């Protein structure tokens, strides 16, 4: 079983992964600004979200941020797009500061 990590540079990519593969999406986040990556949207028949963790960067001072890591597993064949939005939870009606999309094609 392989483990891959997708980051900011992978925004908009399409990747092909075999069923059973575990992978993560790791993005810079600074929640003390009020901004966070939203819970990911995807087709739950194709993927499973297994982890949602935030790690403060070593060396961060007051106001410093860290990394948000979403862990996934490919459940079945098919195509789905993971969508994330970087926004303040209470500003639901405003456009996000950033978005991230990764399309996953599950294969045998």
């Amino acid at each position, binding site marked *: 079983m392989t483990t891959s990590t997708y980051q900011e540079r992978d925004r908009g990519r399409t990747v092909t992964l075999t069923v059973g593969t575990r992978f993560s999406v790791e993005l*810079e986040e*600074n*929640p*003390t*600004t*009020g*901004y*966070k990556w939203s819970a990911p949207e995807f087709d739950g028949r194709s993927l499973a979200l297994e982890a949602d963790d*935030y790690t*403060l*960067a*070593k*060396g*961060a*001072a*007051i*106001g*410093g*941020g*860290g990394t948000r890591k979403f862990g996934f597993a490919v459940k079945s064949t098919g195509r789905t797009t993971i969508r994330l939005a*970087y926004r*303040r*939870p*209470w*500003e639901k009606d405003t456009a996000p*500061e950033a978005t991230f999309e990764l399309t996953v094609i599950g294969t045998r």
Partner: protein
Amino acid sequence: MAMAAAAAAPPYPPAIDWRHFPAHAPLPAGDYVTPVRDQKTCGSCVAFGTLAAFEAAIRIHDKNPAKAVDLSEADLFYCHAEAEHGRHCSGPSGGWWPDAALACCQNPGVVDEPCFPYTPGDQPCKKCTDWKKRLTKIAKWQKITSTTAMKQWLATRGPLITCFTVYADFYSYHSGIYHHVSGALEGGHCVCCVGYDDARRYWICKNSWNTTWGDHGFFNIAYGQVGIDAAMWALEI
């Protein structure tokens, strides 16, 4: 039978709120707290918390709650935290420290907002050409660790700078008194403390997450919660 000794009154008034300061010689009544700002996506809260206290101190010093004062968070963060101290909006060198920010407010001082308007994101220091003539400085500053001294300062001198730990339940605050109940640790944050209420045991703070958050950008937080009163920083004009 001996009379029970009356409890000594604390050396500060029961409540202070610099947003609604009553006339008290030599200060006229009014709102000495400048408008709520928005740091947006940059971890520059130390600059915002520090200058919120600095701006209020200017209004108090000038005995003018209506004085238009807006100092440049961009100058403090991008010209000092970034250019001189190697700090950034995020990442392993993200954020800053109040002591360092106050030292910069003392020397060389901070320019006004129009001289270097704030936009979020790491960037070079680009102040107006006559920036040296537009500096405002503090005379001195100190770190306070006694809650009695914090209240005395708030009651007699003005707002303070404070830092605390943000947990996920802080985002959903909109009124009342914040107590941490649930949610993951998100990191350290710096704000300006503009008052307190001893009867209900809370501090009144000005955040830098725009007026869309909290109680029009402000929040009340219970004494002793999430490190809010472990230390505060005071400045003098």
